[in-house]
């Protein structure tokens, strides 16, 4: 299950664990040896994670064990109650939505949801929503506006589902509508890219006044694999595509696409989800507090200005 570049770290960790057990069992003092290995481990981890390639980050972003929307609503928020359905066609398990309390106040939360097992993943359609999922999200935006609650979206999808049923029910239409609806929110909106930020399926709930990204998440117009398949005509060139797409948190911060990077603990969020979620909670609290003074019209205008700036052009 471990990623290739994680192997040396995991092996070192295993050796430290063994030594500890041995020392305890035999009642000998190996603290010097263990201390040295610990230092070595920390160095290795730092080095590995300081020099991650973009493709390695993509792998981290997909690593099982990373905090998902359901983890976050249970751990970062309180009193979460899930609300189901789009009131039109179906409930989409690839999108989780509901009400919760955050630092004492009610908020509306919507997020993509992948499964942690194959069975769950099939149920959740690997986090790829159908149109119903986005309609559920829009219903939540209505709810946030109706009650004046901040809106928090959690993004983690390879993309909106590219299937016949989704096309029949207007996948493009509903993504466009969701972008528009979120842009019009009269309440503070913060979007967080948790893991994968795959194209329009991610952006549909990504129109925040602030857009945050976990340190090892990615966000782009297309996945590296699909990009490679189209531009290189070879999906195996995904690594090159990942480099070219500049899809990491740091790239996006530089491009002005995201406002803030939520740091992940050493080894990545999948190895220490609680610490990752704590960092997220703090960032979220700060951003929501910063938005509090803005009135409804100011929030809409702020969001417009934020996205109006995006892009790189030269005016002749």
């Amino acid at each position, binding site marked *: 299950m471990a990623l290739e570049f994680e192997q040396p770290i995991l092996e070192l960790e295993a050796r430290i664990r063994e030594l500890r057990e041995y020392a305890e069992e035999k009642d000998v003092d190996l603290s010097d040896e263990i201390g040295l290995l610990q230092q070595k481990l920390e160095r290795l981890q730092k080095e590995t994670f300081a020099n991650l390639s973009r493709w390695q980050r993509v792998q981290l972003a997909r690593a099982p064990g990373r905090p998902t929307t359901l983890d976050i609503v249970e751990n970062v928020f309180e009193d979460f109650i899930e609300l189901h359905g789009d009131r039109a066609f179906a409930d989409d398990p690839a999108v989780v939505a509901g009400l919760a309390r955050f630092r004492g106040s009610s908020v509306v939360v919507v997020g993509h949801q992948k499964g942690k097992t194959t069975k769950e993943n099939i149920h959740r359609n690997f986090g790829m929503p159908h149109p119903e999922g986005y309609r559920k999200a829009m219903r939540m935006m209505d709810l946030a506006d109706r009650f004046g609650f901040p809106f928090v979206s959690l993004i983690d999808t390879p993309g909106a589902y590219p299937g016949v049923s989704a096309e029949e029910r207007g996948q493009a239409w509903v993504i466009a509508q969701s972008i528009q609806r979120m842009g019009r929110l009269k309440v503070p909106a913060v979007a967080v890219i948790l893991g994968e930020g795959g194209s329009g399926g991610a952006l549909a709930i990504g129109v925040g006044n602030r857009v945050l990204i976990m340190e090892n998440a990615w966000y782009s117009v297309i996945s590296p694999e699909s990009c490679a398949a189209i531009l290189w005509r070879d999906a195996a060139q995904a690594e090159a595509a990942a480099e070219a797409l500049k899809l990491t948190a740091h790239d996006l911060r530089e491009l002005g696409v995201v406002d803030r990077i939520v740091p992940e603990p050493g080894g990545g969020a999948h190895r220490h989800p609680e610490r990752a979620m704590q960092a997220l909670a703090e960032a979220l609290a700060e951003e929501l507090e910063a938005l509090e003074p803005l009135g409804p019209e100011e929030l809409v205008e702020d969001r417009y200005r934020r996205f109006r700036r995006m*892009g790189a052009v030269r005016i002749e």
Partner: protein
Amino acid sequence: MALDRLFRRRRTRGGGRDVPELWLKCPACEAQIYKKDLEANLMVCPECGHHFRLGVEERVRLLLDEGTFEVTTGRVQPEDPLRFEDTEPYRERLARYREKTGRPDAIYGGTGAVEGVPTLLLAMDYAFAGGSMGSVVGEEIARGAEQAAAEGRALVIVAASGGARMQEAALSLMQMAKTTMALDRLWERRLPYVSILTDPTTGGVTASFAALADVILAEPGALIGFAGPRVIKQTIRQDLPEGFQRSEFLLQHGMLDQVVPRERLRSTLAQVLRLLHPEGAKTRGA
């Protein structure tokens, strides 16, 4: 406008070197069509009604009142923010398309009138990088919406696009939000926005401004969707149903207001705009 005027300019320019292209084969009915006949018929197959792609300049001439057009696009130039390189550097691709089309990016248009209704018309150029939307297309559309709002014009966008432009990655993606949100400037002023979907309109263009118009028209037989048919086929590992993602399919599924043959496109657009634009909507006093 007399229909045979539509291609006048091209014919004049093309001169005598067109000889090898005098005849074309219709991809739908396989009929051999004399090119001049096809052009005189608005690039619609006289045999089966198949709609060939129409160039952006011809599109402008088709839709706007004669002598009213003033181009507004062209000042916004593309950059290469990611220094993107696949099998070819993005800069070189851009230069090639500029060479081919004579335009800096995949959009063309400006101000004019549609049967008297003041309009800002933008047409996406499929000949330029498959009509893909990068920063320039997004910026031109946002500017177009803002200008239309400021000047009291209707906004009309003719979509023709393979989707977002990969070479600008996340910045392309952001154009979906930028264009969508710019449309609200028209809402505030109660100015109409009509979207015309032509073959093909897919990906991030469909999933943003193109799907959000007050009235959505499409040309017959156009491929319209979010995911491309090849991607869907790979996903479901089945053949796609007949007519899937074509205009008529989308009409049935409630996504379009009307499928309009090219010969009626101008008059239908004019009717919609006269009904929706403030100048046409209340003629009681006139």
